[in-house]
């Protein structure tokens, strides 16, 4: 009998014998294909942050008739003011981009179409249909529009990002390059753009209203851009390498006032020690996952937005992985997935979703036992309900349908929404 340890040591060699078969016979074809493919121009990947004043500095031009232009501008301002006053009295009130809001409809993808669901009545209506495969809808922060992935069928990793009005009309493709499911996609606070993070540290701002070209967002010395701070996106959290090792830092959006999240001389970590960063809805705190002692223990930590007050949030013992943080809209609680390590079997076991109080660090369970992959969950805009869905492996997206649960955050009671979804539903925010 071979010991598990010995077996594990033998696996790489066994796999190499099984699958390594020399240089594949398509090598020359591949080299020819590459030779016929154009590289993306280097300017589309600027490696340094250029302050906007530099990139948008005006070039002196011919002197303009300023007096005439001034009169025209005054007239335009008057007309705009009158128009705004008219619109202001007739326009629907919108919710704030972050924080507590009223619950609206839910969007979900199923069978390649997008549906809108009334969570109160359970009535569901298809709003994006057609031959394309459309998936993973995401409402804008004001709930007036949504974005979704559209499979174009031109290659194995080719998806477009499409934006539509909340009723599915007015669809327009906003991505200029292919996107994939592993991209992180966030609506900006004002809803005028989508922040696209390709998870390789490249962040692009896509215009969802006008026709401005994609704007790359990069900063000097920043390896991995993590998250822009709500509500104004004026501060960036990022990961970088210093003389002491990997660390988290903050920088103002104009590229100034760099400061560490951990105080100088504090803990420095390896590349993989930090992850899972989430700003609180009001931007006053950051939650992040820390792997403090290389033991396999991954815990929630929080810090103030200025980098002070770093502390571990939960008080649970044992070896656990606390992952996938979701702040409640009022910023008082964080929900998360968790797995516990069993030292006797060497296995990790998923546990029910935990909700931790930011004030006292006390954790309580909510929802049923998830799959080995954990759960997909999200607070409703009013913070009183949570959507819950068993998480499926990435290869099962679009092939497995689940019925979401609505969990009462206060007492944990649940009810099932009787629709089959192939990705987690997304909740619309409405003004209170």
């Amino acid at each position: 009998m071979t010991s598990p340890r010995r077996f594990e040591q033998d696996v790489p060699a066994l796999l190499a014998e099984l699958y390594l078969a020399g240089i594949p016979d398509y090598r020359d074809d591949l080299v020819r294909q590459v030779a016929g493919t154009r590289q993306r121009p280097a300017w589309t990947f600027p490696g340094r942050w250029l302050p906007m004043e530099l990139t948008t500095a005006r070039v002196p031009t011919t002197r303009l008739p300023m007096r005439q232009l001034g009169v025209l501008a005054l007239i335009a301002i008057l007309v705009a003011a009158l128009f705004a006053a008219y619109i202001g009295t007739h326009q629907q009130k919108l919710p704030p981009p972050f924080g507590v809001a009223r619950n609206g409809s839910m969007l979900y993808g199923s069978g390649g179409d997008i549906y809108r669901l009334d969570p109160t009545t359970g009535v569901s209506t298809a709003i994006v249909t057609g031959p394309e495969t459309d998936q993973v809808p995401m409402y804008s922060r004001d709930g007036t529009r949504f974005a979704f992935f559209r499979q174009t069928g031109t290659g194995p990793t080719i998806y477009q990002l499409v934006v539509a009005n909340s009723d599915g009309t007015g669809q327009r493709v906003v991505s200029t390059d292919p996107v994939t499911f592993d991209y992180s996609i966030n609506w900006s606070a004002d809803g005028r753009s989508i922040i696209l993070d390709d998870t390789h540290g490249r962040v692009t701002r896509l215009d969802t209203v006008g026709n401005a070209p994609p704007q790359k967002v990069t900063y000097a010395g920043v390896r991995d851009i993590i998250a822009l701070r709500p509500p104004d996106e004026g501060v960036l959290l990022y990961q970088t390498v210093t003389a002491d090792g990997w660390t988290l830092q903050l920088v103002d959006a104009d590229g100034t006032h760099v400061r560490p999240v951990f105080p100088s001389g504090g803990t420095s970590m390896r590349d993989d020690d930090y992850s899972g960063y989430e700003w609180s809805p009001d931007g006053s705190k950051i939650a992040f996952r820390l792997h403090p002692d290389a033991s396999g223990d991954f815990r929630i930590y929080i810090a103030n937005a200025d980098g002070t007050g770093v502390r571990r949030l939960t008080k649970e013992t044992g070896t656990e992985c606390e992952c996938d943080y979701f702040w409640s809209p009022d910023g008082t609680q964080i929900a998360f997935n968790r797995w516990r390590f069993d030292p006797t079997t060497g296995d990790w076991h998923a546990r029910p979703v935990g909700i931790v109080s930011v004030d006292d660090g006390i954790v309580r369970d909510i929802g049923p036992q998830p799959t080995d992959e954990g759960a997909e969950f999200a607070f409703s805009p009013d913070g009183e309900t949570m959507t819950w869905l068993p998480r499926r492996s990435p290869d099962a997206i679009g092939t497995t349908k689940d019925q979401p649960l609505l969990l009462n955050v206060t007492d944990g009671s649940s009810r099932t929404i009787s629709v089959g979804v192939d990705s987690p539903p997304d909740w619309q925010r409405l003004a209170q």
Partner: protein
Amino acid sequence: MDQRGLVERARQGEHDAFADLLDVRLARLDAAARLILRDGELARDAVQETMIRAWRDLPGLRDPDRFDAWLQRLLANACLDLVRRRKRRVIEVELTPIDAPSAVDIASGLADRQLLDQALAGLAPGHRAVVALHYLLGMPLPEVAASLGIPIGTAKSRLHYALAAMRISVTAEPDTAPATVAGGLA
């Protein structure tokens, strides 16, 4: 020339440098893709997609030392994207008939490899991706988790499950009959 230099030259658009980078990696990437997809043609598609995308986006790679990790991540995503796009189907894999070994020994060669292959066929593509990245491509587990967009706990759990399945297969009584096994694409 060292790898960093080759990556820098390829980033400047030198095809020869990219071909050099490709030559020393192609066999292992192809092996990883075949392990994940269990289909030679699909593996070829995934590797082609990976290398063309790598060439196209190489000017955006900021740290040349991260080239391998970046390439392996592209491969894993190309494989899993292919899986997502295909309806479930059964792939017939012909295996060579063998004589039963006299004793179960992990290092005993063909029999164990065949059983190992059967065990891998029974795993989900997502589990095989963890095995391929970690054991065939030598990627550290936290990086595997990041590459596949899954928590580290899930990566560990998948690896543990896959190892258990492989270990059971090679320590169980081997089947001496010629084998045809079904591999699945979820």
